[in-house]
């Protein structure tokens, strides 16, 4: 229970942060040249000034900035994200349509990066300064330095164009009428390249962190004790070292949640996936301020939620954190 209490306190502490983000961004977006009505009118190919004024007052854009901000925050409490003039429906609907794709992409990429990074990190640490370690560490450095979108594009050239093993983009085969398991398999098929692309950079980071923390933990006294009492090397690594070495990696998972959301903007563009990142890019180009603010709000919530989960996990892995507070 104390774990929950601790995590809840952290959660409450993130509320002012959220408010700060929203107010800051709202004011920042007021500086943007042109508003939604301008974009809308430009899309319609012009309109007379009277109608433009009418549109402004319809969307509440004629009120003073602070009044608009107050209205926006009040509506936000009821989870009303406003109306997207560009898409012609509530922002919440637009975002909810796109959210599952991004969540699926992120969750898969994160788990893959975490598992593979951990595994490779453990192997590298067990064979430190020998060829498996050098190979893995070099690979990690190269992965870290690769621009993810470029890796995705090269993946398309090799696996989609040359070998035609994988589809070049999209979330699923459109109009194929797939249902049930076939649909799941089809989506998984389409997500192989995007997930690999997004996971690459993070895999490299986890690998490095895991290797370093494994090496550190292996020098500690309790490991020597475990060896001295006759445990096999595998048992020492799995039961004693790994659990302690996992902590920095778990911390990093929370810290990187935001970066990963940013990375999915680019990856979704490369593979034409209808996700939140793609929506963010489109609303930047179309000056859809309401949608952009909504996306920022949702992604901040997402990051806070992931950090909440990480806190719980952390306390689970290391009970000292709870009793120590």
């Amino acid at each position, binding site marked *: 229970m104390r774990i929950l209490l601790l995590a809840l306190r952290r959660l409450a502490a993130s509320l002012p*942060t959220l408010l700060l983000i929203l107010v800051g961004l709202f004011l920042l977006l007021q500086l943007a040249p042109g508003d939604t009505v301008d974009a809308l009118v430009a899309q319609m190919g012009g309109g007379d000034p009277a109608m433009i004024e009418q549109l402004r007052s319809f969307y509440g854009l004629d009120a003073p900035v602070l009044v608009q901000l107050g209205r926006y925050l009040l509506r936000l409490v009821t989870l009303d994200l406003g109306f997207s003039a560009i898409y012609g429906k509530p922002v919440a609907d637009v975002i909810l349509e796109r959210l599952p794709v991004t969540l699926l992409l992120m969750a898969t990429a994160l788990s893959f990066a975490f598992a593979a990074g951990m595994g490779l990190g453990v192997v590298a640490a067990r064979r430190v300064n020998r060829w498996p370690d050098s190979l893995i560490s070099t690979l990690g450095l190269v992965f870290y330095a690769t621009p993810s*979108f470029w890796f995705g594009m090269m993946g398309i050239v090799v696996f989609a164009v040359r070998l035609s093993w994988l589809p070049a983009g999209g979330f699923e085969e459109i109009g194929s009428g797939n249902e049930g398991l076939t649909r799941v398999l089809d989506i998984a098929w389409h997500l192989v390249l995007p997930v690999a692309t997004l996971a690459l950079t993070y895999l490299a980071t986890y690998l490095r962190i895991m290797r370093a923390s494994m090496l550190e933990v292996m020098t500690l006294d309790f490991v020597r004790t475990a060896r001295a009492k006759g445990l096999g090397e595998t048992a020492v690594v799995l039961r004693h070292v790994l659990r302690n070495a996992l902590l920095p990696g778990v911390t990093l998972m929370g810290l990187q949640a935001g970066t990963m959301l940013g990375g999915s903007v680019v990856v979704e563009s490369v593979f034409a996936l209808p996700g939140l990142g793609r929506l963010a890019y489109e609303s930047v180009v179309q000056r859809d301020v309401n949608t952009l603010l909504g996306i920022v709000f949702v992604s901040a919530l997402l990051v*806070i939620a992931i950090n909440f989960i990480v806190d719980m996990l952390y306390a689970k892995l290391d009970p000292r954190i709870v009793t120590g507070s």
Partner: protein
Amino acid sequence: MGFLKRYARNPAAVIGLLLVLAVIAMAVSASWIFPRDPLSLAGRPLQWPLDNPRFWLGTDNTGRDIAAQIFHGARTSLLIGLVATVVAIGIGIVIGAVAGYYGGWVDDLLMRITEAFQTLPNFLLLLVLVAVFGSNITFVTVAIGIVSWPPSARLTRAEFLTLRNREFVQACRVLGMRDRQIIFREILPNALPPIIVYASVIMAVAILLESALAFLNLSDPNIPSWGNLIGAGKGVLRVHWYVSAIPGLVILLTVLGVSLVGQGLNDALNPRLKGR
């Protein structure tokens, strides 16, 4: 000197330094080797590398010389990397130093702001900044700096927390020095080494961020940049993949070089940690 010797004994660090020097050489020699505007029409579009001796890296889909763009792009990337890093480290040092030195409500407030920046996906914030202030190369560079400062602020704060109650700082206070002098003249030089090492990470990420922005056509189109070239190659990827492949490889090598130099510096500065 021990430091240089330690650095030179690390083969990875030396390779990194060579890579960075090569990029610097490219940036410096760009105007001599390719005196023409790299964004002007040079020849028939989409010639493969080595097909035409005049264009040894080929031409892109609008007939511009790829080699010229790579050399001139080195300038852009280095400049963006350096300036964005200076901006990020500058903001980070000031905020982290003030928060760590004064503590209390100042610290609380500044850390809340830092947290707000870290909660926001940095690429998303970069998109918003570019949407508001435009794609001019100066704004893009400053914006990359603005989204990259929080980790350096945390690092500086942590260093200041351990240093602020040391005896030499107390001695400065007794001597009646002003806070500003104590922070920037006395404590900061002691806190600097880990921050300088971290600068290499920021620089690597800054180069990657700009290339991602350029790939989305949101960076300055009037500047020869590696990211712009990759973006240009997007449309002809299926057959003429080299247009995107070459600049991507150059970005990879540059970022790799910068990271290796950073790691080498770290190992040379903390010789006891080496091998970890």
